[in-house]
């Protein structure tokens, strides 16, 4: 039960994107199509989970003063691997969101979890924390991407969903809609947590 709680904590009560407001750059930029959102989530998982494990395994030998450069080097190694893998297997999508994949290395969520969780907890707990944060991040990203692509293009992952007569609302796939959707979701989840907290 305690182990499950680590995953749950990262999905709703401490959702990295909506509650702590970090790692927003890639969420807003990539969420205009479902395909890029899925690739981004995959890359995020490939970096977050192994770097959490490695940092947790090395936590006793990392000196306190040098921890940030070491964290960043570990994360940079996994980001390079993930970037090269996605270039090899998903090249068309990779070319569109290249910049954001390379920038996973400075994603505040990954560095934040290394600092706040993996550096002080065991390997198995860090693995669960990595999975939880990936779900928390991917859930928000893919939800926004589904809404934006459906309204903005009438398609989901490139497949036509809406009928032919549907007039796509172009604004939804342009940059401003990303901000507006994140705003609505943040407001919604904060109101939900406030109400839940008020009842107890």
């Amino acid at each position, binding site marked *: 039960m305690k182990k499950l709680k680590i995953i749950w904590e990262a999905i709703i009560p401490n959702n990295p994107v909506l509650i702590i*407001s*970090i*790692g*927003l*750059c*890639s969420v*807003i*930029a990539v969420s205009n199509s479902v395909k890029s959102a899925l690739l981004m989530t995959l890359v995020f998982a490939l970096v977050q989970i192994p770097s959490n494990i490695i940092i947790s395994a090395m936590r006793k030998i990392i000196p306190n003063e040098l921890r*940030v*450069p070491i964290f*960043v*080097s570990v994360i*940079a*190694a996994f*980001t*390079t691997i993930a*970037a*090269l893998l996605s270039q090899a297997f998903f090249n068309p999508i990779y070319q569109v969101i*290249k*910049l954001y994949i*390379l*920038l996973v*290395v*400075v*994603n*505040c969520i990954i*560095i934040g979890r290394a600092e706040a969780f993996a550096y002080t907890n065991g390997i198995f707990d860090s693995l669960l924390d990595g999975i939880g944060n990936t779900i928390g991040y991917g859930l928000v990203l893919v939800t926004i991407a589904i809404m934006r692509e459906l309204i903005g293009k009438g398609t989901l992952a490139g497949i036509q969903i809406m009928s032919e007569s549907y007039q796509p609302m172009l*604004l939804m796939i*342009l*940059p*401003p*809609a*990303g*901000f*507006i959707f*994140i*705003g*609505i979701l*943040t*407001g*919604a989840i*904060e*109101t939900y947590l406030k109400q839940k907290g008020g009842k107890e």
Partner: protein
Amino acid sequence: MSYFQNLIKIFISSSIINNIILIQFLGLCSYIGLTDSLSSSIGMSFAVIFVTVSSSILAWMIDNWILIPTGLQPALQITAFILVIGSFVGLVEIYIKKVSPNLYKAMGIYLPLIATNCLILGATFINSMNNYDFVESIVSGFGIATGYAIAMLLLAGIRERLRNSDLPPFFKGKAIAFMISGILSLAFLGFSGIIK
């Protein structure tokens, strides 16, 4: 088109048309986190301008003098850039602490934050992807940081006024900041196409 005109074009396109925050979405953490007050956003803007320009110079040198000649560019680029920026921010921090303790105290929280700001690293990647030469990289880095400063000051100004206004509880806090950014971003979309 002369070389000088080309530089002006790069500056305008990186600061306004492709505004790093409102159109490209980099560096959002500090944008949302620090725009609560106008004074901290001014301090952060100056720090970001300085660090972005210097890291553009350093990253250009590393990219063109070490990584490309040795053929290590795709594999080691991320690691090299992030280590350069991280150690550079560390050096700046030590230098400011030594030279002016007051400035260090005022900027204390923001300085280490800069090292993990995706805007700085993003600027170096943008320079590298567009194959800019040395001067073009500096102008582009400066333009990107200016665009950041413009967006920071716009949002900070609006949020200072919002603090006293009567908002529905749903939007209080961060939600309204995102909504305003959406509207600002819509306004900046209007600049697209001024340079052909």
